[in-house]
């Protein structure tokens, strides 16, 4: 399982890549995509939607089930990765390349943890 050290994570298995002090990309971790299995549908948020830390922002569906995606931080959605709408399998193939949406005005970042801490969280869940 990959956990790039340059990214931040939350315990609900989203990753955050900061592109500036107040802007970031959000995606699903390798642990998450593996646990979900083959993804076949993504339901992305609207541009300009408000992300509220800890609340459902969109959802993804595997063959078997639908899973909520939680906003790891608060902010405003500036862009969604439309490529995923027709190719949700990219989340399985390249979880850290397949960002779901971009946020500006990022705040409420206190739930973010580093890669090492996140790996421990995954290890505990895996047991």
């Amino acid at each position, binding site marked *: 399982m990959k956990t790039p050290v340059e990214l931040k994570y939350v315990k609900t298995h989203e990753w955050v890549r900061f592109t500036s002090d107040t802007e970031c990309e959000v995606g699903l971790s390798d642990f998450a995509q593996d646990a979900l299995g083959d993804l076949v549908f993504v339901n992305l948020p609207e541009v300009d939607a408000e992300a509220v830390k800890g609340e459902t922002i969109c959802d993804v569906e595997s*063959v078997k089930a*639908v899973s909520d995606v939680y906003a790891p931080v608060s902010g405003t959605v500036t862009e969604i990765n439309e490529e995923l709408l027709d190719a949700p399998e990219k989340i*399985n193939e390249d979880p850290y390349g397949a960002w779901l949406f971009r946020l500006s005005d990022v705040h409420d970042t206190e739930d973010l943890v580093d890669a090492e801490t996140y790996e421990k969280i995954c290890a505990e869940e895996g047991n």
Partner: protein
Amino acid sequence: MAEKTPLYEEHVALEGRIVDFAGYLLPVQYPTGVIREHMAVREKAGLFDVSHMGEVTFKGPDALDNLNRIFTNDYTNLKNGRVRYGVMCYEDGGCVDDLIVYRRGEEDFFVVVNAANRHKDVAWIREHLQGDVVFEDVSDQYAQLALQGPLSGDILSSYTELPQKYYSFIDTEICGKPVILSQTGYTGSYGFEIYCRPEDAVFLWRTILQDERVIPCGLGARDTLRLEAGMPLYGHEMDATISPLEAGLDFGVKLNKEFIGREGILNRTNRHRIGIQITGRGIAREHCDVYIGDEKIGHVTSGTHCPYLKGAYAMALTDKAYEVGTKVLVDVRGRKIEGVVAELPFYKK
């Protein structure tokens, strides 16, 4: 405490993701993933452990009478070596279970039932037996493998002769292991089911998997395959509150004979099982409500993304029949997505 099938250690060794299904620890998928497992069955071959299925036998002079009275289908003209589908109903027409009957002799029948219903079925049957018949639950004497896919005949023919017709079976051996081999399955693809002694299951599993054209498949693919093939699943398309006619199983219900639940079935509503192809964006799942305009017409009983057809499909129980092509809306978590009534099965080999 969930039971392990004789193949449990094989699933663990193959890194299957184990779940408790109907009281059995079985793999929902292997690292290959549901989509590749599904496609293997449509294009090559996939091997499933279905040892959880229940098996019972009816033997004796009144065996046939009991089948014909307790089950909805008519087994009178079922030939030795052939298999026939059927349903078992409560008096009110609701379904106890669905099943398949193998005729092994004039007075000798082997019946395969759903794992989750096994104990309920056995109790129901015992309660309704009449005459000179010996009924036995033999589930623990059999393990079951399903080899499904267009290449499955080629693969098995290096070990044994094959039952040539769909829904026929033979008693044979694979590498000296006695098996019942039937041309049956729950995937909609050409394929076989193999009933063997539990102690031979690991050997047969490994022998078949030696062929590089076969991959092991889990319950996830079993479910997407049967749904793509429009096959009903007990607990979804039918249950104690749904009659076999409402579930669209007319071919397995013979109303011209007497059987338990016949009157109940006739007193039922006009509810109907329909197929829906989702044309909007999203996946309809079980329990989603189905509408025409603002009028609710029913609910989804099973729905998923079908990997071979590359789209979302669902089966639904509706208030009446609707013509193929009728536009519907499915409420997916508060969002109404578009669909169209589609012919069942969605996939036909």
